[in-house]
C-alpha cells in the first residue's frame, strides 16, 4: 500500500497484516505515520495505491454506506479520548447505541452500565467529560468504543500522559478485552515497555516501510540499527537527533543575516 500527503510519500510499499483475535502493535518514531495508518484502516482517508482489506472488505472504491456498516464493527480509542464534551459520561457511552439501534431505554441503560462497570467507572456515569482525569477520559472512551461489541478495536497512543496507576488499568483492560471478547486489537504506540507487556506481535515502522516484525522479545535482539536505536531509546542513530540544518558554525558566525 502507498499513501502520500501533498506529494510527500508517507508509506511506500507498506505490507502489514493484523491477525484475528490478537493484539498487534504498530510502533515507530514520531512522524512515521502511525496515526495516518489508523486513518487509512478506518477509511477516513484512502490509499493512493495498493489495497487495504478490513474484515474481508476492500476499502478501495467502497461505498459510503458499506464503509459505515464496516465501521460499526470497529471501535477506536483516540489519543485524547475524543469524548463529546456536551454529553455526560453515560450519554457518551450510550451515543453509538442511540444512533445505530432502536433499543428501549431500559436496555440501553443496562448495556451502558455494564460497559462502564467493565472499565470501573459506573460511579462516574453522571459526570461531564470536563470533570474527568486523563486516565478516566480514556477509560470512558474505551467503554464507548466497545459498547457495540466490535470485532476490531483500534487504540491510538493509549499510554500517552498516564500516571502509573492509570497505565496499569489501561494495560489490564486492553489484555482483558482481547482475551474475553476475542477482539482483534491494533495498538499504535511508541512506548516500548508497555507494548512488550501487552502485544502478541509488533510491527516497527520507519521511512514509510516495515523495518521489523516479530514478537516483542524477538524485536529486542533484531539485527537492525533502527530497531536497536528505537528499542534502546538511543538519542542518535539512523533517526538523527538533529533536524537537517546548514553548518552549525557557519550559521553562528554569519553576521545576523538569515
Amino acid at each position, binding site marked *: 500500500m502507498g499513501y502520500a500527503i501533498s506529494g510527500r510519500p508517507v508509506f511506500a510499499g507498506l505490507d502489514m497484516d493484523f491477525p484475528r483475535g490478537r493484539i498487534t502493535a504498530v510502533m515507530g518514531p514520531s512522524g512515521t505515520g502511525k496515526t495516518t495508518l489508523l486513518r487509512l484502516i*478506518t477509511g*477516513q482517508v484512502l490509499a493512493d495505491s495498493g489495497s487495504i482489506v478490513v474484515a474481508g472488505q476492500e476499502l478501495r472504491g467502497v461505498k459510503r454506506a458499506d464503509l*459505515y*456498516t464496516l*465501521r*460499526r464493527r*470497529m471501535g*477506536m480509542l*483516540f*489519543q*485524547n479520548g*475524543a*469524548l*463529546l*464534551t456536551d454529553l455526560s459520561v453515560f450519554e457518551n457511552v450510550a*451515543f*453509538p447505541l442511540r*444512533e*445505530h439501534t432502536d433499543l428501549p431505554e431500559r436496555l440501553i441503560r443496562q448495556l451502558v452500565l455494564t460497559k462502564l462497570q467493565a472499565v470501573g467507572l459506573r460511579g462516574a456515569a453522571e459526570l461531564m467529560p470536563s470533570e474527568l482525569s486523563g486516565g478516566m477520559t480514556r477509560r470512558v*472512551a474505551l467503554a*464507548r468504543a466497545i459498547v457495540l461489541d466490535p470485532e476490531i478495536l483500534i487504540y491510538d497512543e493509549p499510554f500517552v500522559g498516564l500516571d502509573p496507576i492509570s497505565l496499569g488499568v489501561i494495560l489490564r483492560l486492553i489484555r482483558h478485552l482481547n482475551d474475553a471478547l476475542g477482539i482483534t486489537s491494533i495498538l499504535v504506540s511508541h512506548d516500548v515497555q508497555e507494548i512488550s507487556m501487552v502485544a502478541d506481535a509488533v510491527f516497527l515502522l520507519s521511512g514509510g516501510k516495515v523495518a521489523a516484525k516479530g514478537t516483542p522479545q524477538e524485536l529486542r535482539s533484531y539485527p537492525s540499527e533502527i530497531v536497536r536505536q528505537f528499542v534502546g531509546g538511543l538519542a542518535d542513530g539512523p533517526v538523527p537527533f538533529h533536524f537537517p540544518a546548514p553548518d552549525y558554525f557557519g550559521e553562528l558566525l554569519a553576521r545576523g543575516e538569515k
Partner: protein
Amino acid sequence: MNLVSELWTSLIESLVGLGAVVRFLLRLVAESPRALLRVDVIAQQIYNSGALSLVIIMLSGLFVGMVLGLQGFELLQRFGSEEALGTAAAIGLVKELGPVITALLFAGRAGTALASELGLMRATDQLSAMEVMAVDPIRRVVVPRFLGGVIAMPLLAAIFSVIGIYGAQLIGVQIMGVDAGSFWSQMRASVGLSDINEGFVKSCVFGVACSLIAVYEGYHATPTAEGVGQATTRTVITSAVVILFFDYLITAAFL
C-alpha cells in the same frame, strides 16, 4: 501583467471558495428532512441559538426602538406630523432594523458560538470520533445547528421588532406626549402585509446565510487554537458583509 495574473488567481480562488460553500449548503439541505425527524436535537439547537440570544436581542430591540422614538419624534415634529411616529418606527423596525440588527447580533452571539464549538470539536477529534463510530457528523452535528439557526432567526427578528415598537412607544407616547390613539391607529392603517413579508423574507435569508457561514467556517476550521480563532473572526466579518449585501438586494427587489 503580474497584477492582472494575481487578480485572476484571486478571482478563481474566490469562485472555488464560493462553489465549496454552495456545495456544502446543498448537502445541508439534502440532509435536512431526515434531521428534522430528530425533534429533540433540533429543539436543543433552537434553544442554543435562539433562546440564549433572547436577552441581547430584547435589550437591543428596546434601545433601538427608544432611539427611533426620540429621533423620529424630533424629525416629524419639524413637519408637524409627530402622530406618524408609530408608522415610521414600525416600518423602520419591521422592514429594516429588526431583521438587520437581529442578524448582526445573531452573527456575533450565536454565529461565533457555533463556529468555535464546531472548530473545537474538530480540534479535539470529536468529529473524527463520530466518523469512526459510523455517525455522519454533518447529519448529526452540523445540520441540526444549521436548522436551529435558520428557525431561530425569524423568531428573534419578530421579537426584536415588537420590543422595538414598544420602546418607540415608550419614548414617543409616554414621554414626548404623542397621542396614543394616533400612534397605534396610524401604525395599523399604514403597515401592510407586504411590509411584514419583506421583513420575514429578509430574516429568513439572513438566518440561512448566518447559520451557513458559521457552520461552514467552524466545520472547516484548521484544528488549532489559532485556526479556531480565525474561523470565529471570519464568521463575524463575512456574516456582516453578506447581511448588508443581501439587505440591499432584497430591499431593491421589494420596491
